[in-house]
Each structure stands twice: as structure tokens, then as C-alpha cells.
């Protein structure tokens, strides 16, 4: 970057594929990225959002306007690195105030080369996406030409049919030890797993073997696990037909299986159901989900752009949870097989802990299957 460039790059542009352009100030790294433009409504937890692999391929806008206030720390990372393509906020805090802070968010984004923009009307952006649906966007602090950026957005990959699990998954299997006495062995399919899911299992006496997304069912069954966990992750579940087939085998083997988010969508497809793209998705920590049999409500953490179609599910699969805002499927279980899943994030991080009990539920399932 030359010196003259750096004076130009005080500003950054965010161009949407439908031609709308927002002009703001550049922060984080200088650069240019394209991705699906989505928004998250959590008021805290930006670091967890940035490091959630499910955001791969996306430019994320936080609806809460002040981001970065408490900086960044190593403990709150949900994976080894940030995965968002770009980051959009109303006002980035250049300083960090927290006893836990290790660096400022700005420095962190620079370190990981994530371009970001602030000082734009994020509410207008969110309303635009809400009304017109999630769309592709290009965020740039190097190209000042609006038309060119809109073109770049249009030329970028669409999230539909996009496969991203292979990008974010672990390259090789690894183990996570149980905390305390080891009671179970769980194989975790890593489609973009968050650290807190692993922590929730470990806390409950599970040893984990985290395997790449392409691992064949036979290899997993050969490990004789007590259970299989299908993680969250980015991309369109429809792009995963090979993996879906492996999952169907695993489920039908009678191995207790638990899926969350992307894993839930893959299970839905494995049982013969279909998935569809939501208009702008659910991303935030305040979504009300009702458990159908008891009527009890949990406030849950969401991050999904696709959902399982309720009508497409076979009779053997029961919808156990629905979203009260839009009635979309939030959880299901197989009536015959020891398999259940939720569309949302019981591991939270960020978000409320109301749904944590699903991990306990899975441990209990493994217990009863063992007996």
C-alpha cells in the first residue's frame, strides 16, 4: 500500500448486489472482501461471532451499534481464528476496557487481515436486508468506485449450494480429553465446530474425537463411539449430499446422534427431508423457541440461514421445537432411532444458556442406550 493510497482508505465502501452502497470509515485491516451480507442482533459477544466458523463466507453486520468496547481475549475465541469475511458496525471502539481484554478489536482484526467498516447507518442496512433478503456484498477499503464494487458483489459466489465445511473443518482428527472421569466417547463431525460445544461435552465426562467433515461413517463406527455429534457449520446443507449419506448410515446404525445447526440440517436431509434458505436467517441471542410437548420456552442463540422444512420430514421424525417468531423447525427427534437435533446453539457463546440442557439430554441418551 502506498502513502497516497492510505489517505484514500480512510473511507470504506460496502456495496450490495442490488446496487445499494453504504459509505463509512475503514477500520480493522485494509482490503476488499465479498460475501453474503448478514446481520446479528446480539448486543454482546462480537468476539464469539467473529470466531464462529459458521460465518465463513459472510460479511457480518452487528445491529448493536457500539462494538469493541471490551476488546478481545484468548478465552472467548470459539475457534482458532476469525472466520467472517468482513465486519460492519455503527461505531467501533478504538479502546478496550475490561480486565479480560488482551488487545483491541481493531488490532485483532488487523492481525487477522479482516477488513471492517464503521460509521455507516447499520440500521438502514439491516432494514434493507430484512425487506429484500440476505444478499451478496463487497466491502472494500481499496476500491472507491461504487459501480465496480457492486459488480464485484454480483460476481461473487452465492451462498446457495455453496460448500464451506471443507474450508473450515479440521484437516486431521484430534482428541479432546474429558474433564474428570471419562464416561463416554463421542465422535464429533467438525463442519465448523465451536470450542464451547467441545467444552460442554468434556465438562460432562465425554472424551471427544473431532474428525474432518469428510470422514466416512465406517471409520467412525470402527471407533465404537458412545455417540456421534454433528456440529454447526457454514454453507448450504444441500451441497453436502455425500456427507448426508454417511450421516444416514451412522444414524441407522443405532449410534446415539446429536446434531446442532448445520448438523441438524444434515440430519433432516439424511432422513429424507429438505432444507430451504430463509429470507435473512436467524442470527442473534434472543430467539424464543418452544418445546412442543411441555410448552416451555427457552431463549436461544441462533445462527442459521437455512432451515429444515417441516412438511418434508417423514412420519418417523417428530418436530420437537419451533421458533415462536416464524414457526420454523428448531428441533426434531427420530421416533425409532436414538437421534435428535436442534437448529439453534445450545452451546450459546454468545448468547443465553437456556438450552444447555440438550448436552445433558444427549449424555442421558447415551447412558440409556448403553444400558
Amino acid at each position, binding site marked *: 500500500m502506498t502513502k497516497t493510497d492510505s489517505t484514500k482508505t480512510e473511507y470504506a465502501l460496502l456495496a450490495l448486489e442490488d446496487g445499494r452502497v453504504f459509505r463509512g470509515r475503514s477500520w480493522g485491516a485494509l482490503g476488499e472482501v465479498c460475501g453474503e451480507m448478514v446481520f446479528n442482533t446480539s448486543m454482546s459477544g462480537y468476539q464469539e461471532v467473529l470466531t464462529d466458523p459458521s460465518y465463513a463466507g459472510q460479511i457480518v453486520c452487528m445491529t448493536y451499534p457500539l462494538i469493541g468496547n471490551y476488546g478481545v481475549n484468548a478465552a472467548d475465541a470459539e475457534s482458532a481464528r476469525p472466520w467472517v469475511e468482513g465486519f460492519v458496525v455503527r461505531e467501533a471502539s478504538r479502546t478496550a476496557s475490561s480486565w479480560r481484554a488482551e488487545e483491541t478489536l481493531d488490532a485483532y482484526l488487523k492481525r487477522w487481515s479482516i477488513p471492517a467498516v464503521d460509521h455507516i447507518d447499520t440500521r438502514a442496512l439491516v432494514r434493507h436486508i*430484512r425487506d429484500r433478503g440476505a444478499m451478496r456484498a463487497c466491502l472494500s477499503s481499496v476500491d472507491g468506485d461504487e459501480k465496480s464494487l457492486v459488480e464485484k458483489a454480483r460476481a461473487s459466489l452465492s451462498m446457495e449450494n455453496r460448500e464451506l465445511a471443507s474450508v473450515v473443518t479440521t484437516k486431521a482428527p484430534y482428541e479432546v480429553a474429558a474433564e474428570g472421569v471419562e464416561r463416554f466417547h463421542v465422535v464429533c463431525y467438525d463442519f465448523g465446530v465451536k470450542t464451547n460445544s467441545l467444552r460442554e461435552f468434556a465438562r460432562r465426562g465425554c472424551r471427544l474425537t473431532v474428525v474432518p467433515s469428510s470422514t466416512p461413517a465406517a471409520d467412525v463406527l470402527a471407533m465404537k463411539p458412545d455417540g456421534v455429534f454433528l456440529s454447526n457449520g457454514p454453507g448450504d446443507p444441500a451441497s453436502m449430499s455425500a456427507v448426508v449419506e454417511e450421516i444416514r448410515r451412522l444414524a441407522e446404525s443405532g449410534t446415539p446422534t446429536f446434531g446442532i445447526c448445520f448438523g441438524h440440517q444434515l440430519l433432516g436431509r439424511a432422513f429424507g427431508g429438505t432444507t430451504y434458505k430463509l429470507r435473512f436467517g436467524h442470527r442473534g441471542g434472543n430467539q424464543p423457541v418452544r418445546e412442543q410437548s411441555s410448552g416451555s420456552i427457552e431463549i436461544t442463540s441462533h445462527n442459521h440461514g437455512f432451515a429444515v422444512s417441516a412438511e418434508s420430514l417423514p412420519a418417523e421424525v417428530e418436530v420437537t421445537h419451533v421458533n415462536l417468531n416464524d414457526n420454523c423447525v428448531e428441533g426434531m427427534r427420530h421416533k425409532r432411532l436414538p437421534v435428535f437435533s436442534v437448529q439453534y446453539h445450545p452451546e450459546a457463546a454468545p448468547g443465553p444458556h437456556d438450552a444447555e440442557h440438550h448436552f445433558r439430554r444427549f449424555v442421558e441418551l447415551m447412558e440409556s442406550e448403553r444400558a
Partner: protein
Amino acid sequence: MPKRTDIRKILIIGSGPIVIGQACEFDYSGTQACKALKAEGYEVVLVNSNPATIMTDPEIADRTYVEPLTVASVAAIIERERPDALLPTVGGQTALNLALALDDAGVLSEFRVEMIGAKREAIRVAEDRELFKRAMDEVGLVMPRGGFAHSWAEAEVMVEETGYPAIVRPSFTLGGTGGGTAFNPEEFEEIVRAGLAASPILQVLIEESILGWKEFELEVMRDLADNVVIICSIENFDPMGVHTGDSITVAPAQTLTDVEYQNLRDIAIKIIRKVGVETGGSNIQFAVNPADGAVRVIEMNPRVSRSSALASKATGFPIAKIAAKLAVGYTLDEIPNDITKKTPASFEPTIDYVVAKIPKWNFEKFREAEDVLGTQMKSVGEVMAIGRTFKEALFKGLRSLEAVSPLRLADVPADELQRKLARPNSQRFSYITYALQQGVSIEEIHRLSKIDPWFLEQLRDVMSVQERIEGKRLEEIAPDDLREAKEVGLSDRRVAYLTDRSEGEVRARRKELGIVPVYKRVDTCGAEFESFTPYLYSTYEEEDEAAPTNARKIMILGSGPNRIGQGIEFDYCCCHASFALREAGFETIMVNCNPETVSTDYDTSDRLYFEPLTFEDVMNIVDVERPEGIIVQFGGQTPLNLATQLSEAGAPVIGTSPDSIDLAEDRKRFGALMRELSVPQPENGTAVSPEEARVVAERIGYPVMVRPSFVLGGRAMAIVYDAKSLDEYMRTAVEASPAKPVLIDKFLERAAEFDVDALADETAVVVAAIQEHIEEAGIHSGDSSCVLPPVRVAEEHLETMRHYTRVLARALKVRGLINIQFAIKDDRVYVLEVNPRASRTVPFVSKATGVALARVAALVMAGAKTLAEFNLPAELTVNRFFIKSPVFPFAKFPGVDPILGPEMHSTGEVMGVGETFGEAYAKAMMGAGLTLPCRGTAFVSVNDSDKGQAVLLARRLARLGFRLLATYGTAARLREVGLEVESVFKVNEGRPNIVDAIKQDEVALVINTPLGRASHFDEQAIRRAALQHGVPCVTTMTGAHALVDSIAACGVDGNTRPKPVSLQELHESPKSAAQSPRSGAGVRL
């Protein structure tokens, strides 16, 4: 779960008069609860002694009792109404305490009334700190170290565990009354003893200090199916040690990582379940150590609170309304979110803006009180502001405060600056910005103030934006810099000050550059769903969501933050204007910045702009909405002060013209009018210097009443008896200028005073009420009790007042409301003051007469109807005695003399209704929290001119069975007429003296009129002692007579059964004229 059908009738208890720590937020919550339950088909019975509330409007509940909030009075209402259930959680601490007391007295079980919302056990656990602490221990939650002491001896032991500084909080008091922080044994003893005395259960909590920790609050809701949601998190700008009511607070929390926030959320849910609050909202306070994140649970309120009103306004989630529905059995998912319409209430609001609440103090009214903030709340009101950044919200909030003259600091010595930063005070904010400007580092300011560096950084950002424009020519400022100044919340007025130009010029330049605000919606969901409710705030961004309609619309300017002299009464008027105009088919637009009020409820008006009440902010809305009329006459002085400026800018102010408003305020113009109309005024003049003042005073003769121009609530008003005091007043008490001269009036000693409210337009004048003050002239009208109808005035004087009212209303071309203050001295009627606007007494008069004056006035102002078309009589009548009595905050300000004078000190009011004057006054006194003494010793000490009256009074007291106690002079006079009197020393005459007697609870009643400067100290000690020991203390003879009337009405045994009467009964079946109280009144004097 569907709503319960086994209950039909529900009793709601309100919070009584406005006091520090319990303000109109409970009118808001109570009104919401009444409306919600009525809408569900329940019959709602309401009791609240405060007539200035919307909730006590006859339409809000089915049966409305403006009666004292005492066990006896509410028990009588329960017996009469037989409600199935009692909802105690929407009337603040008052309602909660009263509900418990009713239960203790067996009333609830006797009449089979079920407590809904919160059960007795849950209230006890949450409210009794000892039980609460035990409950927290049981679920592994940590509270600050320490414990409860019930005596000084126990406290001494306890402090060894906590060390110094130690926090002392008395149990069961409002706003932390009697609490404080002790830094040494001497302070400790003082605070503990005061705290034990203030606590109704003689208990204080003594705790380790967590001063300087960060303070957070969570608003939690739970339903009967055990679903729990958090509505809002709040972070205090001021650290622990400052009462949250006195802190600047911010929503949502700004400096917590998600891990820390979710931990607080988990704890909050654990607490509400453990305490067992079944349904509704609770507020939980936390302290967090900034060094390591350690958390302490501070307290829980198992009810709707000031913070939940704030949270409701901050998020758009109506906590009280939802709480009421949950109390009758609904679950959260069965209740729709009004704003999005499509989503249920079982969610957690997420906001995409920042909310700042800033307290408003009235320290200037309590000169002896030290301006130091601590664990006892001292603010009298608050503002809320919404912005897209903290900076914007904070600075919008600061200008919403209407600081009379912003503190401009210069040359503050370093040690004083350090002290001001380290010791929280109401001006601390000014000192912080000053320190930043002086280059004091953020680390240093943080070290002294313990305010989180993040907040300080935000302030520094604003300072640097200011620096970029300061001293520049307006036209030279880069458009981006000017835009940024607006984005961070700087007002046009501030920019004008920095560039040495006028506000109008800044506004013009700004508009020329296209720098105008847009309006965003408060929608509970961060724009995830469409909002159907126009609840708006301004910001400087791209997209505007105001979407104004083409309807016929009227804009109503609210009254801003509560303060002494301008409170809930004006919010009442604004709401009524909105209700009436909505019904008449207008679209109504409310502008206000007070989060406690009903007017800032998003469904009171068609559109709500939560904005500062300044010329700039109001005109910006006018530009967008283009209303056909603006009402400035209902919100008190705040909007009235904008009238001329708005009108000159072309805004359509309706009702009485700004010119008439100015005419009434401008001493010279008004004097000329009065001479022209031949209406007598006390002799008067104006002065800008001490010399000039002396000339005026000598011309008209002492004593004189002096006051600054354009003030509220008699601010800095005084009665001056000689040249020396006048000099002192002119030099120290006021800043006079040619634009704002000091007003000097002949003081009419011992005159009787009257407040008249009337309605007028070109077609008619209706005298709504002639209210007689109980206290004589010289006591601020807001601090004097008043009675309707008048009881001791000749008919000819009433006629004169009616006549002058009509003459003045016509001369001022009044269209709407007018309030006139009269005095009668030596059989002559004088006009003291004319206010062509809604007055403080409008709600009281409306409730007494059954005619909603503000509604009629609003329709007349908007031209919907002429006054003649209402077919009202020339003068409204009442069929009972109605008394309005003030309540005072003296107990919160140690060292302040609780004496009445021309400067207003009361924060709120109650109403008493009775068949006789005595009954009504007794109810008013009980409503104001006084226990009427029925026997015991009455202490009498009066000045020479009152001695004649004192004889009459003493005789009546003796006849009622009181023992008499008097100082030597008074005693001698009473003995002359054969009364049996004991004498007692004055304070400076020796021991034991009268103060000792009061402190030993030997005195049941104090009657003490001021003797003058010499005995000032003595009298102050008596009054303070009486205040502390809850002994009624009267400082005027007329007040004393009224009190004796009420004691007589209570019966000698004090056991006369209360006779509650609902407003609906009063106004639906008017008594015949023959039974009019005027003829049947047994009133002396």
C-alpha cells in the same frame, strides 16, 4: 395457560404522593396495569392518595378511591368492594409494604383476597435482607460481607468484620433513607443510629464496602409456567456507592463480555426462581469488581420499579402491562408484542441504540444540604435520551436536563478538582469534562472517580470534536466536522457558544448544509421485524423512518424531567390533551424526555418522539411532522419558555397566544394591563442592583417579597423584612440583569390566599374552582394545603375573584386554561399572579369537580369545539370537601430546616375527600403520611402576633383531651386565660428542653410559628427533631387550626371508621344542593 376465570375483581394499590425515590414511574406502571386488566374483562378497583396521577382518572379503573394508603383506609375499601385478588407489585415500595401490612392485620384472609403477582413469602424474602441473604447463600450466590444489626451494640460488633468504609442500609425504607457510607467510627455511629431510627423494623444492614465496583442491573420477567426472560441490562456510569437513582445509567450494559453478561443473566434467573416471584417483573442489582470480574448480588426488587419503567421506555417492552397479564395467568408466549405485532412477548428485546438516563437534582432548593451523592437517593427526577451512540445519548440527555445555567468552570484549584472527582456530587460531570479539557489523563480521572475508562474515553472523543470547531468561524467549519458535532450530540446552542454565534445562525447553517436529523424507531428487535409503532428518536444518519402522515395533527410538548415545582401534574395535563384530541379525530404527537411518565408510553399518543424539549429538537420535529397545532401550555414552564421562539420560527402554537403568555410574565406590561383594568395588585417594582432594590422597597414598604424573573416553584423567592437582608439577598441569592430583573412585591402579611383555575375562550369563561389555601400568604402555593370549596371567605370576595377571573381571561384572550392567584388582605382582593396555562392544581380540580379540565381545554385550543358548546355552568361545583396537601422531602436532606416559605419544597401531593372539612383534612394528613395524634401532649410555641389565635387553639386542644406544653412566654399567656399548661425550656435555655422531650417521644404534636431571626436555631432544632420522630409539626396558625379540625373529626378515641368513597360514586350521583358542604360545614375560623 389462559387467563384465570376464578377471579373477577382485582384491587390495585398505587404508590401515593410523589416523593424522592418514588415518582411518576408508578403512575405509568399502575395505569398500564389497570388498563391491561380492564381490557381482559376484570373489574379493577384502584386506591391511590395521589390525585395528580392518570391512574386515578375515573376512566382508568372501574372504581377509583383517592384515599389514604393506610391499613385502616384500604381495609375499609376491601370490605366495601370485596375484591378477589390484590395486585401489590405495580405501586412501588408503598404498595408492597401496605399489602404486607394488610396481610399481617388479617384483612386479606378475613375477606379472602388473594395476593397475585408476588406472594407474601416471595415479597418477604426479597425485601427482608436477612432472609434474602440466607436465600442467596442457599443457591451459592455471593452478597457483600456483613450482616444485620438491630441495635448499636450489634452494629459495633458487625463493623469489625466489614472494616471501613462500611455501608449502612436501613431495612424497608424508600430510596435508602437513612443509609450512608461510614469511613470512620464516628460517622459509623451517626449513620447507624439514624438508620435504626428510619427503619420501621429497627434493622440496618452493615456491609463491606464495594465502593468503586461497577454496578449493573437486570430487569427480569417470569410467568407461571416458569419461563424467564431478561428485558434489559443497565450499566451505571457511576460506580457502586452512588444510589442507582442518583447515577447516570446506560442501557444496555457497555463493558461486559458476553461470558460475564450471561453469568449475570444466569444468576438473575436463579434469584427470581429462588425468591419465588411467580409472575411479573423484578429488578436485580449487581456489583462487579473491575479488577477481576468478581460478582456480588446487591439486591432484588420483587416488583415493577423505577428501573423497570426505564427499561420499558428503553426497549419498547411494556413491563408493567405484561406483568399485569402474567399475574392473571397468561404465559409470555400468549401475549403478543405490540410493536412487531407478529412476534410474542416471550423474547428478550435487543436494541440498536444506546439509552442514557440522567438524574435531575434540586440541591439549589436545599441550601444547607451538602451536594454529595451516596447510597441515599436525592434526585427528584430524571431524563432519558436515545442515540445511536453513547456520546449522542449522553449529550442529548444533558441538554434535556434544562440546567438553568450550565456550570462553566474556570481556574479550579487542583486539590478541589481532585476532591470533586473523587467525591460523587451532582456537578461531577462538569468537573470530569473540565479535567479532560485541562489535560488530566483518563487513568487519573478513573483512579479518582472509579468511572470506567470506556465512558471517560467517550467524553474525551466529544471534547476532541468540540476542539475542532471551537473558536472557528461558523462558515469555516468543514461540513464533516459540523456533522460530526451533531452526531456526537452537541446542540446547536453549544455550537453557537463555541463559535460565538446565535443558535438561529447555527441552525440555518446546518440546514443549508443539509445536516438535519433523521428519526429511527424503537422496535424491541434491532430492526429484525417491522415496527408498527411510531416510537421515535432522532439521530444524524442516513435513513429516516418517521413516515409522517397527512392526518390533521396536534403536537403536545411535555414537561421534561420532574423537579420541585414541575411534576406529574403537568404530565397529567399533557396526557389528557392527547386522549381528548385523539378521540376528536386528531393524530396526536407527544414530545417528552421523561421516562417515568405516562406521556412517554408509546400508546398514549399516536406518535411519540422521545426527545429533549429544546427549541432545536422541537423545531426539527416540526419540520418533519408539520403539525397544524402545537400545545405548549400544558407541560409547565419547560415548553412555555419555548413558546415565543417557536412561534417566531413559524411553528403554529395554538391556544392562548405566546404574546399573552409573555404579557402575563412581563412585569411591566402586566402592571400596565392591571392598571388599565383597575384590578389591584400588591405594590411592586423591579430592580437590577441592590441600590435600586432598596429604593423600590422603601417606596412600597417592608416586608417585601423578592424573586428572580422567569423561575419555577418559587426558586430563590424570599420574604425580606429590612434593608440589610434585602442587600444580602441581592448580592448573594440572585444574578439580576436588565433582561432578568429581580421582582419586588409588597408582601401581604397574614393575607388569605386563593388559587383559581378557569377555562376560557372567546365564547365563555368557566370558573372551575376557587381553592382556598390553608396556609396564609407567604407560603408557596405548591407547599400550602388548599381546600375546595373555600371555607372562610365572604361571598362578596368570591364574587370579586370570579369577576377578576373573567376580566383577566378576556383581556389576555385566553383560549384554554388560566390560573390566577389571589390574596385577600383587609377586605381587599389582590391579584398576585396570572398564569395563562395549565396549573399544578388542574388534576386536583378535575378530580374534585368531575370535569376533566385539560380535556376541555385541549379541544377548545384545537378548535374542535367552543367552550360554550360544552354547556358547562359559569362555575363548577363540588359535593364534598376536597383537600390537596403537599408532601416534603426534608427527611432526605439532613441539616435542612423543614420550614415552609415562599420557595417551594414539596415533591408531591395527596387529596382528602370528606363530608366535613375536618374529615377531608384528616384524610389528606393521613395520605401525606402523618399519623394524627388523638391524645397526648401538644407543644405550643408561637410568636406574639399569633398569641391570640394560640389561646383559641390551646382551648380546643385541651377540650379534645390534650395535655399542653409550652415555652415560658406562650405558657404565661395560656395560663392567663385559665388553661393548664406545663412549661419547658427552649433549646438554649437549658436541659432537658423541648428537643429532649420530642426525642423521648413525650410530644404528640408540635405547633411552632416562627419568632424571627433570634430563635431561628432553636426552632430549626425543634422542627428537625419532630421530623425525625414522626411528630406532626405545624408552622402556621391556620395550618394548626386545620389540623385540630381533623383531629376533632377523627373522634376522641381516634377510632372513627374511615369512610372511603370512590370518584365514580362522587360524580355519578351528585348530592342535592341542600346537602352541599357549603351549608353544612362546621368549619371554624
